[in-house]
């Protein structure tokens, strides 16, 4: 089996705003045609990463390779091939038609421009006759978001970057955006990188998920982040802990100098009934199931369990979920050993 060559390769990317480092990525490869879901708290570096991937800004250090060649903002190779839809998309002060056609008009407009506009408007669920000649200020938030997406889709970009595309839209718009994004991959092989706080939405439309915390990337498929603040135990000096909002404590291993974030493999966490205890496990914390949803690819159930303010997203088979009688609101025990936690 041959793997698709990466469309992006990021090498030693670091970015600073003043003295504050917001991005620290040693290496990242994004395969052609992949849909990457990027999640992380506000201020974690998601939007900065997307702007760098869109070549809208240069990183403070490091290189971004696109299709095997290092590229920079305004390079011809990326103009129109990489397109970003921001969280609050800016619509040009003109009609919907002119907004969507802009990217093609500044090149050599094709003869079938009207047809192409009609086609992408249909893809994002906008009726041409009703919307094409509306002005930019006559649209709702969801309609504006779909116009912005259509303006990118008409360019048939190799890469489409969507920053919180469903943050302020209704469920119908969110569904139309998801369908249009998936169709772009299916019909034209477009690579997508999507950020969202709406995890069910993200899991249903992406095939790989990455989480970003303090500017560092983690593969969500395998690892879970235990965010700080971390407290050093005064008694031993070597042991670190993380106090949860409800008073429970997670024991952490001795911290290595460069470690900024505590991580644990998903497979090392066991979900048990609320009364069950394991004598050999030093971390046993109570949590409550917040949400459960089917993931798009493997039919697994992604279960979000809140334990004292930290979300543990664990994938499980329908059989496992049924055995534990899991449903939103169920109280469970999460068991894991501190020696399985590592510092990144």
């Amino acid at each position, binding site marked *: 089996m041959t793997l698709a060559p990466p469309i992006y390769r990021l090498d030693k990317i670091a970015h600073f705003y003043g003295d504050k480092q917001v991005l620290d990525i040693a290496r990242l490869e994004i395969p052609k045609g992949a849909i990457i879901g990027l999640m992380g708290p506000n201020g974690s570096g998601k939007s900065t990463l997307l702007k760098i991937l*869109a070549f809208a800004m240069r990183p403070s250090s490091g290189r971004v390779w696109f299709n095997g060649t290092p590229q920079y903002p305004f390079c011809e190779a990326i103009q129109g091939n990489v397109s970003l839809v921001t969280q609050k998309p*800016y619509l040009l002060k003109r009609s919907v038609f002119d907004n969507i056609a*802009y*990217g093609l008009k500044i090149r050599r407009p094709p003869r079938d421009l009207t047809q192409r506009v009609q086609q992408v408007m249909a893809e994002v669920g906008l009726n041409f006759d009703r919307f094409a000649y509306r002005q930019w200020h006559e649209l709702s938030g969801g309609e504006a978001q779909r116009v912005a997406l259509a303006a990118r889709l008409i360019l048939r970009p190799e890469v489409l970057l969507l920053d919180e595309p469903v943050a302020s839209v209704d469920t119908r718009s969110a569904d139309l955006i998801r369908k249009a994004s998936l169709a772009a991959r299916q019909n034209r092989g477009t690579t997508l990188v999507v950020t969202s706080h709406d995890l069910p939405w993200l899991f249903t439309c992406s095939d790989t998920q990455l989480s970003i915390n303090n500017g560092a990337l983690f593969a969500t498929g395998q690892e879970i982040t235990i965010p700080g603040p971390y407290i050093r135990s005064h008694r031993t000096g070597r042991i670190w802990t993380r106090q949860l909002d409800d008073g429970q404590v997670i024991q952490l291993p001795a911290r290595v100098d460069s470690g900024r974030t505590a991580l644990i493999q998903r497979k090392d966490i066991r979900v048990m009934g609320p009364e069950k205890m394991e004598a050999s496990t030093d971390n046993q914390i109570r949590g409550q199931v917040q949400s459960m949803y089917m993931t798009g690819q493997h039919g697994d159930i992604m279960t979000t369990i809140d334990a004292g303010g930290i979300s543990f997203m664990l994938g499980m088979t329908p059989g496992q979920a049924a055995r534990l009688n899991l449903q939103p609101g169920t109280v469970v025990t999460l068991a894991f050993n501190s020696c399985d936690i590592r510092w990144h």
Partner: protein
Amino acid sequence: MDYIVDGFIKAFFLLIHLDPATTSAITATLKVSTIAMIISLTIGLPLGFVLGYFDFPGKRHIKTLVDTLLALPTVCIGLIVYALISSRGPLGDWHLLFTLTGIAMGLTVLALPIVIAITAATVENIDSELKLTLVSLGAGRRHILRTCLWEVRYGILAGVVTAYGRVLTEVGIAMMVGGNIKYHTRTMTTAIALETNKGQFADGIALGIVLIIIALCVNICLSFLRKQ
């Protein structure tokens, strides 16, 4: 009181019968102000865009300089331009003193900082998402400049109208550089000043009415643009 009423009546007849001295002053004013605005816009729009859009060392100092030029009294501009184009000045060989071109030159110096400052301020307030959007839509530097200016066209047009109003009603430069020569460099404002000094209120009022009508049109345009 009667002389004011008589002045209005005579002004009406002067305008109706297209009095040559009056129409000459109107034509000279429109000519110099239009030339000055064309030059100011050609130079000022790109400079204002650069000043508002990009960050570069010394930007703050340049902005301070432009803002200072905004407050420069017109008689100072008249004095500087006079010194430059008089026969003893560095541009003396061009014989621009007491010509409409000389006046247009002075008016350009007056309008240029207004155009630069208003363009820069308007461009500075452009939504930061606009540039990101244009880059995402594959726009190069040239298209970014053109589209950004088009997006803030109403703000810039308001600036242009303000500058035009200032140029149109200017008296110091026209008087000093133009010399107020009848049928040649006499503008509406210099004519009003002269006729009033001579006690010829009718001529002054006639030109004043025209000036007020033009100013009214300019302000109607401005108010329309602000609504946009």
